[in-house]
């Protein structure tokens, strides 16, 4: 994890698992960085839940449209980490 990275893939998969709950365990162990969230079983509501937790735990604001456009873990990590960098520069 570089100094400019707020969240990495293992952390994101941990959050995704937490939101899905124990009853609904999707396999996130493979190379899922570029797999579309819908194919992993995460619809827009499930993602909104994950994003809500990230915003709350890290005190950052994410652009709603950018989040909605992020179809893969890689794209979502980019949105989160670039927002975190922007906040750090502003601060």
């Amino acid at each position, binding site marked *: 994890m570089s100094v400019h990275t707020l969240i990495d893939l293992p952390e994101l998969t941990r959050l995704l698992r937490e*939101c*899905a*709950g124990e*009853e*609904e*365990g*999707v*396999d996130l162990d493979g190379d899922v960085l570029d797999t*579309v969230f*819908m*194919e*992993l*079983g*995460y*619809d*827009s*509501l*499930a993602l*909104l*839940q994950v994003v*809500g937790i990230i915003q709350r735990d890290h005190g950052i604001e994410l652009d709603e449209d950018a989040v909605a456009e992020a*179809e893969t873990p890689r794209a979502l990590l980019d949105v989160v980490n670039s927002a975190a960098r922007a906040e750090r520069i502003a601060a």
Partner: protein
Amino acid sequence: MSAVDTRARPPHDRRPDDDTGGPERIALLLPGQGAQRPAMAHGLYGTEPAFTEAVDEVLALLGAEGDRIRADWAADTPAVPLDHVSRAQPLLFAVDYALGRTLLARGLGPAALLGHSAGETAAAVLAGVLDLDDAVRLLAERIRLLAEAPPGGMLAVAANPGQVAHRLTDQVVIGAVNSPNQLLLAGPEPDLGTVAELLRADGLTCARAKATTGFHSPSVRAACAAQIPSFRAVTLRPPRIPIVSGYTARPLTDAEATDPVFWAMQPAEPVLFGAALDRLLADGPYHLVEAGPGQSLSALARRHPGVTRGGSRVTPLLAARPRGPEDDRAALRTAVERLAPAAGSTRDRSRFEARA
């Protein structure tokens, strides 16, 4: 499966009821209100013969209104917004039904059907419970009645029923239980908006579903009850293909299938999709095929234990976010390639490959 009269099934759908050695069985998942989007499946219209024919049959039965619906389907600025009941409902029905017909035309007949909300009406027609012309006439009447219901909506909430119970009112109710962690609340405005604010303050994740009517709530009960006489006037038959009902979470019995009140009141009753999917997959494994716009039901199915651990598979017929008509055609092509070796006979396959 004993309730099914195999003699009434089309020949390509006849296969041994054998879970172990037989071919993979297809179960269609048919989405309802909320799944609609501009130009949904429009890329198949005019290029996929069975799909085109089925959509045209539905729209022709709607007369001049059918022409206006066709014009709004992929319009940049539709005369009536696509989320309105008078556009969403007929187009969802047409697309779900036509995708079912597309699979039948390729010899990929389903062994079971499960519709979400209005998707169950498309299932009823595919299973022969309702004739297409009766179903479309009843749908047109239902739309007129629902258009007079109080303005309302639906709210997706990442929660289980217990987490929202204290926020429900006599008007804002649970309209659908989609999974252990996903609900749809339904009701009139401004009540629904008030409940949404309270749930957000509780720390729950909420998102507006695409509806301008409070489906599956008391606000549409009167409109549904007014349609009971019309349902009594049509012929209802036992299903030729088993339907797992989203309203009972069990295989539809012959008595339910032929009960006019059961069908008339569906838009006012809660949808138990999660429990119905549990029931379907308890008889699995199935190859679950989403026959409708988007992949909302596929996403729910993909995280179901019957799929993650039970050997069932999921194949949507359309893209999650199509970016143009070619995406619709590519998604169908990919899906049929996944399905053809599973359910088609050698002859069916070679016929498809010869056409492709």
